């Protein structure tokens, strides 16, 4: 990393920090806030964003207890790695398709990226009661099962935090372009090398089952009945909320398998669909231009 870029990274990291301070309290006990990861990735390049955001979360953890010390690793993974890389990749794809609308491309990319980060966070949180519980079923770490964690994380981000992120990202990128600020990475439609994108997505898809394997639990141990017991007890109100959000794979299970392999499959398929779409769009644009 070139030394010259350092103050720029620090500056934009400070900006991201400030941005993240504006938490909107949400029902369900979480807060939604914009992250600025895609913005940072566009301005600083993906790796500058990774460093900058990791620094931001460390400062938040040390000085504000925001996110917590133990959650630092997860926060870095979700919001300092997955989010800026995904956001950057999507941005590059979108801006090569719509070169005259970089700000809009940035906004869309940041929206998708924050949802992706929320998804990962929800999965990490939702699996914990399964993996770490006492003999009587008391969750030892995060107490919300997947059925609760997923809608609780995703809905606020889809409806509130995501739009805020998109708005701020789009506006700031537009502003930066208008004032012709010399940025680390100027938004320019350059021919893309998609190889690293596939590699990145593949790696992320791999990490999900590796996380589960690391817990030491064999997949076969989870019988359908146990899980039904654990995940089944949900107050009706939350069930309704969960019902708002429906996926092709409902309850993250494919017929015939237990939820966990189905969950992995869903993740892979989801990312595959996204990547495929991006790829097709890119091919179409190349043929056009």
């Amino acid at each position, binding site marked *: *990393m070139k*030394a*010259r870029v*350092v*103050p*720029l*990274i*620090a*500056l*934009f*990291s*400070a*900006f991201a*920090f*400030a941005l993240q*301070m*504006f*938490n909107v309290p949400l029902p*369900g*006990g*979480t807060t939604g806030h914009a992250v600025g990861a895609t913005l940072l990735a566009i301005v600083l390049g993906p790796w500058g964003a990774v*460093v900058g955001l990791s*620094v*931001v979360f*460390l*400062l938040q953890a*040390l*000085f*504000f*207890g925001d996110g*917590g*010390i*133990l959650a630092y690793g997860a926060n870095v993974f979700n919001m300092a790695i997955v989010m800026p890389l995904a956001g950057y990749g999507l941005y590059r794809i979108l801006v090569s398709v719509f070169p005259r609308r970089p700000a809009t491309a940035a906004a869309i990319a940041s929206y998708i990226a924050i949802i992706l980060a929320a998804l990962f966070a929800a999965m990490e949180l939702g699996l914990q*009661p399964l993996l770490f519980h*006492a003999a*009587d*079923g*008391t*969750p*030892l*770490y*995060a*107490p*919300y*099962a997947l059925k*609760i964690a997923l809608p609780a994380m995703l809905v606020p981000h889809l409806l509130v935090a995501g739009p*805020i992120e998109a*708005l*701020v990202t789009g*506006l700031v990128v537009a*502003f*930066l372009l208008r004032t012709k*600020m010399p940025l680390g990475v100027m938004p320019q439609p350059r021919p893309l090398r998609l190889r690293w994108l596939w590699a990145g997505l593949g790696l992320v898809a791999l990490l999900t089952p590796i996380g589960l394997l690391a817990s030491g639990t064999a997949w076969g141990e989870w019988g359908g009945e146990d899980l039904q*017991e*654990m995940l089944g*007890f*949900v*107050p*009706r109100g*939350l069930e309704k909320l969960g019902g708002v959000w429906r996926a092709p794979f409902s309850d993250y299970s494919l017929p015939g398998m237990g939820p966990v392999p189905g969950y992995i499959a869903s993740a892979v398929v989801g990312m595959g669909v996204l990547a495929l779409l991006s790829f097709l769009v890119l091919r179409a644009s190349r043929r056009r231009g």
Partner: protein
Amino acid sequence: MKAEGFWEKTVRHVTEALERALVAEGLASRPGLLQGLDPRAKVLTILLLIVSVALLHSLPLLIAFAFLPVALSSLSRISPAFFLKRVGLFVPLFTGIVALPALFTTPGRPLFTLWEGVAITEQGSRAAFTLVLRSWDTLSLAVLLVLTTRWDHLLRSLRVLMVPRAFVLVLQMTHRYIYIFLRSINSMFIARRSRTVGPQPAGESRRFLASSMATILARSHHMSQEVYLAMQSRGFRGDVMVMEHFALRKRDAFWAVMAGLLAAAAIVADRLLT
């Protein structure tokens, strides 16, 4: 009007919180227990204690660990009242709110039924309590580390602990900019308020927020480049330098051994209790 008030209030609260948190309060120079330790040893041992708390499952042990930071803080000439205020504000606020629904949503033996189908369960209470305690324990240890160590010493210790140079450098400069940044936003809001009459629609406020942030960005960008050039001009090449020379002494070794024993004992006790 409410929407505008919300953003402005948030900005004000944030800047105040930031000033309290980031500005050195001289606590790191008091002649207390933790202040006298080699910062590298301190960082390592506190990290060790934090990791042990992470591994604990037993509630009584987590409760016991809650007293440790308070004891350490008073031994370090930091009044427990101040310390509790510092940590106590954030943890109940964030973690408590997050943990609250768990009382009801965790399946198990109902302790207290509110109405049809909604009850506080035993497992839920324990889960919520465990979550809050664990957060409190780890957080207060981290805060203790930050309060009793000079910032540049902390940065230098990270270097010694093999954290990449680029990371520490960005950390150092970001810390410096955050304060300036929020101050600018605050004064921008104040300036704007003196220019507008009447309530602003919510969307307008948000747009102003984003565009004023972008303006500060543009201005600060120039300044940041200048500062870095000035640093380079005086020979800066990317390493955080401090005047003091770190040397491990007997008391650091003693402290490290004590912390290690405590961590080990806690983990063993935990395994036995569960």
